[in-house]
C-alpha cells in the first residue's frame, strides 16, 4: 500500500473514530420469565428508552425502563411483582454498558452489563448478544441471566412453593444513529 493511500485512509478513519456519535433506542421489547412448577409467567415491556454516546472509540450506553411498565397480563400479579421488587421505591431499572465503536460491525458481542434494579446494582460479565444491521439500524437480541438473589428479592411463592430464582430477561432492541 502506498504512503498516499495509507495517509488517505488515516485521514478518513481517524476523525470518524474520534468524533462523538450518538445512538438512540428505537423499538424495544424486554421480557422477564418467571418459572413455577404450576405456572409460567412472562412480563413484557415496550417502554424502555436508551441512549448511547460514543467518544474516543468507546460508546457508553444507558437503557432504562420503568418497573411499572412490565405487563404479565394480570394486574394483580403485576402489582405483586411491583411490591416484591420494591418498584415504587426504585421505579426504574437501568442498564449500563460500554462497547467499542467497532462492535457495531460484529455479528456477536459479549457485553459487560451493570444493572440497577430494586435498589441493588449487579454486574454481569460477557453477556452474549446477537447483532443485525438493517438500513442503518442495529438490532440487538440476547438474554440476560438475571436471578432474584442478584437483587436481593425474595422469591414469591404459590401454594407455599417459591418460584425459581432464575428470571432470565430477554432483550430485543433496535438502535438507530442520532
Amino acid at each position, binding site marked *: 500500500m502506498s504512503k498516499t493511500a495509507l495517509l488517505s485512509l488515516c485521514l478518513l478513519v481517524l476523525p470518524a473514530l474520534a468524533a*462523538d456519535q450518538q445512538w438512540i433506542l428505537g423499538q424495544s421489547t424486554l421480557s422477564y420469565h418467571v418459572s413455577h412448577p404450576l*405456572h409460567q409467567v412472562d412480563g413484557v415491556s415496550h417502554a424502555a428508552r436508551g441512549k448511547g454516546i460514543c467518544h474516543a472509540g468507546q460508546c457508553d450506553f*444507558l437503557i432504562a425502563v420503568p418497573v411499572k411498565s412490565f405487563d404479565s397480563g394480570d394486574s394483580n400479579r403485576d402489582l*405483586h411483582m411491583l*411490591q416484591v421488587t420494591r418498584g415504587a421505591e426504585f*421505579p*426504574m431499572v437501568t442498564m449500563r454498558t460500554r462497547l467499542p465503536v467497532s462492535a457495531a460491525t460484529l455479528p456477536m458481542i459479549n457485553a459487560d452489563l451493570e444493572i440497577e434494579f430494586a435498589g441493588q*446494582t449487579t454486574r454481569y460479565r460477557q453477556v452474549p448478544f446477537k447483532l443485525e444491521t438493517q438500513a442503518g439500524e442495529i438490532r440487538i437480541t440476547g438474554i440476560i441471566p438475571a436471578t432474584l438473589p442478584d437483587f436481593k428479592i425474595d422469591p414469591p411463592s404459590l401454594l407455599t412453593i417459591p418460584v425459581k430464582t432464575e428470571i432470565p430477561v430477554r432483550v430485543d432492541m433496535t438502535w438507530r444513529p442520532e
Partner: protein
Amino acid sequence: MRWPIFLYRQSESPSPLVICLFVGLTTSLMAQSAETGVLTGKVTDSSGAAVANATVTATSLDTGQMRSTTTRADGSYRFDGLKKGSFRLKIEAPGFTTLETSSVQVDSTEMAVLDAKLQTAERTSSPPAPTMQESLPAAPSSSKTEPSLSDLGFSPEQTQANPKEQALLDKRTRMLRIHQRMGLITTIPLITTLALSVNAGGKSTSNADRTAHLVMGAITGDLYGITAYYAIRAPRIKGTKTKGPIKFHKTMAWIHGPGMILTPILGALAYDQKSNGEKVHGIASAHGPVAIVTAGAFGAALLSVSLKF
C-alpha cells in the same frame, strides 16, 4: 316480618350463630386495636465512636408515615409511641454515607433495638440507597460522554421514588395473603356445611343434623366475613386497571358476597319452619339453591386465582 337472627334468641340457650358471630367480631375488633412500641439504638462510626446529631428517620412500611429524631452525644436515639409494625430506618450525618436499613419490626411486647455503623462518605461503594436513584438520574452527565437518565425523557413521576406507594403495596400484599389463606380455610367448613345439608333438609326431622348444619354454616359465614374484610380493606393502587384472572375473581365476589348474606337469612327461615314442624315453604325454600350458587361462585373465584402467585 321478623329479622332472622332474632329467631334464635327465642331458644333456651344462645344460638351457635350468635356465638360464632360474637367470636368473629371480637377477633376483628381486637386485631384493629392500636398498640405502640419503642425503637431505640446507637449510631457509631467505623471505629466504634458515637456519632452525635445524626438525623434518624423512621418510616412506617404500613402507612408511609415518617418520624425523625437526632442522636444524642453518646450516639443514642429513641422513638417512643411508634405504632406496632414494620419500619425502615434512614440515618444521615454530615461526612458519612446515608444508611438505610431494611425492615425492623416494632411491637408492644419488647423494645426494638437497632444499632447502626456509618461509613465515611469517600470510602463507600455500596448499593445505592433509595434517595440515590432519585439524585443519580436527575443530574445530567457533565462531560456528556456518558448518558444519564435525564437524557432519556422520562417524566419525574416515572423516575422518582414513592415510599408511600411502596408502603401501600406492602400492606396490600400482606392483607391479600391473609385473604388468600382465609379463603382456603373457609372452604373446609363450607364443604362440610354442604355435606351436612343432605340430612338437614328435605324430609329429615333430625334436630341434631339441622343444628350441626347450622353451626358449620355459621362458622363458614364468620370465616367468610374475615376473608372478605381483608380483600375489601386492602389498599387500592391508583392507576391500576384490573385485568386477567383477577377480573373474574372479582366478578364472582359479586355473586358469592350477596349469596353469603342471603343464605343464612333464608337458612334461618327454613330452620324456623322445620322446627315448628312445617314443611319448608315460601322464600325459605330458596335456601338450598342460593347456597349452591354461592358455594359454586366461591369455588370458581378460588380456582381462578389459585394457579398463580
